[in-house]
């Protein structure tokens, strides 16, 4: 009754007063430009989650209000729009970014204005900030288990690390190279290859991979090729007759959404490593897919891993706000560590003191209908490492915002700040 009265009063009052009666949530995803292909979906899933929370009665007795901005795949614009969301719109938290460079671009803004960012995409790690919560996978939650799977199940001995030339593939490949060498793989059995963004002529590289793979040892490709460049890459693989049974390709950036643009019949058996697949059969996932299709009014819309990361991140934030009894960033940052929410693959993910979360790792094989068949998964949930154990510069670093209050504490020199 009190609620209804409050709603009535607020409805009668002018806009300025109304602003205080809703909790604003910022959505910072590109809706135009090159990244729109991936990020538009994340905006939609956030709108759905907020809508759903409002139907449940909102948060702390207030309705949630989504504030959507379009940073247009333009990195400096990300920082500008983030500033606008925090200073002008006074949002309680922001869900957004896809590429690492966009995250790096908004970081100073979130630190300066002390707000909260939930970042939903798998990334290269080597970072832990007080104001950022990383709900996507760190390399130890995606890349390393995928390599283990190939070495164990497919008996792979020769490795091609192929990636787009930017920070995520470069760092991930550096970690993987160190990891493979630590497992006794010889340098001549590792081939590293970088291509520009949007590379579309893969003839030479696929031929090189074929050649590299014909040395008599089982070969696999670890692909950190980004976004749009994947379609011509897979088309070329299919045309040159590279089959998954000969040289499997395991990708870290190819999900259900990316496969929507390809005829997947020649690709059956190639792999992807994620923490979520649409094909996972759990009641939670079934309900989520159902809601998503109803919300988008489109029966063909697929779900993917970063969407699940937003679901987990949003639910964690809601729980933390309820626990803290306020949306004040400092209180929420303190309250959210240790918060547990169910993920969509049947486990319970927890926010760790290093601001990463625990996730299961799944390996899926591409099916002819563009979905993935889960062929392997970790027994339990894997906690995300902010700093890789396999790199010289970071193996002594730990992040702990609960007790140490530090994102890069050096365990050797016992000092905060590498």
């Amino acid at each position, binding site marked *: 009754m009190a609620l209804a009265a409050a709603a009535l009063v607020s409805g009668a009052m002018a806009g300025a007063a109304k602003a205080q009666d809703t909790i604003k949530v910022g959505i910072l995803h590109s809706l135009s430009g090159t990244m729109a292909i991936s990020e538009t979906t994340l905006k939609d899933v956030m709108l759905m989650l907020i809508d759903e929370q409002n139907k449940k009665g909102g948060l702390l007795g207030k309705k949630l209000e989504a504030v959507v901005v379009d940073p247009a795949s333009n990195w400096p614009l990300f920082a500008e729009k983030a500033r606008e969301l925090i200073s002008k719109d006074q949002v309680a938290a922001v869900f957004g970014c896809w590429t690492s460079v966009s995250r790096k671009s908004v970081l100073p803004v979130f630190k300066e204005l002390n707000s909260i960012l939930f970042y939903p995409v798998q990334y290269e790690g080597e970072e832990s900030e007080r104001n950022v919560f990383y709900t996507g996978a760190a390399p130890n939650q995606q890349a390393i288990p995928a390599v283990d799977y190939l070495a164990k199940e497919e008996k792979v001995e020769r490795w091609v690390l192929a990636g787009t030339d930017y920070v995520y593939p470069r760092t991930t490949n550096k970690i993987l190279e160190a990891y493979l060498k630590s497992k006794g793989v010889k340098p001549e059995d590792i081939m590293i290859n970088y291509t520009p963004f949007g590379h579309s002529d893969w*003839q030479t590289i696929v031929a090189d991979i074929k050649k590299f793979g014909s040395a008599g040892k089982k070969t696999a490709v670890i692909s950190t090729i980004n976004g749009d460049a994947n379609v011509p890459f897979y088309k070329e693989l299919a*045309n040159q007759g590279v089959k998954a049974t000969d040289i499997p390709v395991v990708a870290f950036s190819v999900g259900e959404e990316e496969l929507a643009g390809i005829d997947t019949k*020649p690709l059956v058996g190639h792999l992807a490593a994620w923490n979520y697949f649409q094909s996972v059969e759990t009641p939670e996932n079934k309900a989520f897919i159902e809601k998503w299709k109803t919300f988008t009014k489109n029966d063909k819309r697929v779900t993917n891993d970063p969407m699940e990361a937003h679901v987990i991140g949003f639910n964690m934030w809601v729980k933390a706000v309820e626990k803290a009894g306020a949306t004040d960033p400092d209180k929420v940052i303190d309250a959210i560590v240790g918060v547990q929410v169910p993920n969509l693959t049947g486990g319970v993910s927890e926010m760790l003191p290093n601001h990463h979360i625990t996730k299961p790792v799944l390996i899926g094989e591409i099916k002819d209908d563009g979905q993935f068949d889960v062929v392997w998964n970790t027994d339990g949930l894997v906690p995300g490492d902010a700093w890789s154990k396999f790199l010289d510069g970071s193996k002594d670093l730990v992040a702990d915002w609960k007790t140490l209050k530090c994102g890069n504490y050096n365990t050797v020199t016992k000092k905060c700040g590498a």
Partner: protein
Amino acid sequence: MINLRDFLRTLLLLVFTTSGAFAGPYEDALPKFAADSYSDTEAAIGTVAASGHPLSLPLVEALRDGRLLASAGQVFIREPSGGLINAATGQAFGPVPADLKPVRLNNRVRRAIEAAMGGLTLLSSGAAARREAARAVFRSRDAAALRTIEQAIAREADPDLKLALQAARASILLGNEAASTADRLWAVETLRERGDQDALALLSSLPAGTQPEIVEPADRAADSIRSRLALWSALQNVWYGVSLGSVLLLAAIGLSITFGTMGVINMAHGEMVMLGAYTTFVVQEIIRTHVPSLFGASLFIALPLAFVVTGGVGVLIERTVIRFLYGRPLETLLATWGLSLILQQAVRTIFGPMNREVGTPAWMSGALELGGLSLTYNRMAIVLFAFAAFGTLLLVMKYTSLGLYMRAVTQNRRMAGSIGIRTNRIDALAFGLGSGVAGIAGVALSQIDNVSPNLGQGYIIDSFMVVVFGGVGNLWGTLVGAMTLGVANKLLEPYAGAVLGKILLLVAIILFIQRRPRGLFALKGRAVEA
């Protein structure tokens, strides 16, 4: 109701199963398929393939195609016609459990299937099946298939197929410690004659501890294959270059009209290519839902439509925007750049930001092996198409009145106007022609690239590079420019890598333009006067 065929088959199987009334290895293996474990499935495939049971081939085929269903220890084969038969009895009737699920596959299981199929179909009557079987055995090196393959070689009449079968036999013998030295030396020789990358792989990966009298000839054979392949790989790189060059040519050829002959810096050129690709998508969607039998011809249907659609958009743009901006290159650049953003966002709003699937007709899939060269059909089609488009455009410019008028307007607009050419109309048509050609390039590029709103962005810089390098206003310059850049890029790539290769090429072009600002083939005309 049992029809005659079903009845006969049942009878046959009844005779087979009742006569023995024993549980053979085949029957023992069946429950393993229902265990939902990849290693069990893999083991069961081997057992089934070796059992000689009449149902083993249909069973393995069904497994490969996802038609093998299992439930609670029982296994069923769904026939291509839709009927269900029990894999244990071969009978079509009996209670069928409700929770049937296809037996799941992974790459390991798929490899086992391939190997089993190889062994099972070596003696098949179809030549294509035998060829596939020889290939499968060559890959699997499954010693169990040795006896069958020797039988198959003795029977084979087709010399080509015989060679493939012998290579398969050699692949088994080479690494087999139990085989005689003479046999293994024969294997080395056979593989050396085959001389491809697969043979090289076999020869250079002999197990440790192989006798030196086999290792030495194998090493020599591997060396000779290597030097042969090095030659082929140089040729292969040239082919890659020609194929990249033809993609550049396609993308740039329309621009060489709008920018080259008309002098319009058209930043929306890439979006015309994109519109062409989306036209292909729409055409294919309509064909898929209404007349799927026409799918193989979808690209030919899309070509004229793409020309009309993008040509129309081109004329519209010229009439509404560009004609007010002639002689003001900076404003044209900004206006067309704005147009390109508008077109991209419009397509994004209508079709969504996701990639759209444009299918490849069957005749454009796969590759032709020619000696040591591997020529993919889709690239070959694009090379031929690019040259055809170039030739047609050249003819239009040379031998039609439109071409004549266009050249006249390009060389001297006022004089052309004075002798009665409607220069306005020619401008619009020329811009339409350039855009239309970009549209048909989009049809071809939809086969190798993403069909997304960003498609055009990837080509705009390259197109300008080709036109400027080749010489503004000269179609032949565009051809030579595109091919030079393509081949140079592909020859650099193996040594410098894709990223550095591109940078080196850009630097080379900048230096070249410093020496010859008008490109390879300079032309007199409006571009010169401006």
